[in-house]
């Protein structure tokens, strides 16, 4: 008989713990990190909306294949401009990333007391639902489906 740590049940416990680990809460806990993410996202959005070269994707530049996050900047800008169709065609996870970015921005500017409350609430939601982990894994599946089932259309769409 396998020891508990090697049995399927024993391995499922750390996996479950990993899935329910707060990710967004741990990122916004650091105000400097939140500030840097906010600034970088603002700069990227500004550059992309002006049609200037923004953050270059190392995967796309080197291998020629889009990464799971490719197209997100343009999708977010299209969504902000009210162009739902283009946004969802470019990247279906854009609304969720806008929500996550809004939380990061909010956590950056909030006073310390409210910030701690927000981080606590985020941590509770993430620990109870594992929502961030589920969405991240979903995003990887979404990317795989686009890459394996519609490769040509996906690559052409991202390369513009």
């Amino acid at each position, binding site marked *: 008989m396998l020891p508990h740590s090697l049995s399927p049940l024993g391995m499922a416990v750390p996996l479950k713990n990993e899935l329910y680990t707060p990710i967004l809460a741990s990122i916004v806990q650091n105000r400097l990190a939140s500030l840097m993410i906010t600034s970088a996202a603002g700069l990227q959005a500004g550059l992309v909306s002006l049609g200037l070269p923004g953050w*270059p994707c*190392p995967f796309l530049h080197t291998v020629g294949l889009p990464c799971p996050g490719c197209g997100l900047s343009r999708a977010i800008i299209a969504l902000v401009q009210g162009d739902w169709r283009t946004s969802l065609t470019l990247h279906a996870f854009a609304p969720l990333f806008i929500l996550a970015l809004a939380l990061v921005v909010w956590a950056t500017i909030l006073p310390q007391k409210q910030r701690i409350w927000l981080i606590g609430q985020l941590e509770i939601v993430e620990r109870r639902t594992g929502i961030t982990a589920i969405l991240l894994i979903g995003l990887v599946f979404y990317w795989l489906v686009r890459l394996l089932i519609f490769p040509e259309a996906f690559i052409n769409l991202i390369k513009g």
Partner: protein
Amino acid sequence: MAALGSILSVVGGIGSLICLIMVLIKMFPAEGPLKGILAIICTLYAFIWGWMNASRFNMQNVMYAWTGCIVLAVIGGALSGMGAQSALEGFNSSNLPQLALMVAHVADLAF
């Protein structure tokens, strides 16, 4: 110009990918697999995390190299774009007033 831009872009891209992998190697054990996945999806997060933890993991050189590669890739991308513009519209790069007009036109469209 476009060819030079493409070369710079590819060199910057390869360098960036190597640096990203080096940061991910440090990041996965330190932060767990989910943040690692987030860093693959959003390489900008890996870059920020890398700079914030550069001294902790002794990877300042990797981060300087990555920053340099990004600058190269951005310059390469801009040069490729200018080359494409030149090929499409017969743009003469020595004619700076035309470039200024084009920038003004882009700014006009954007705002």
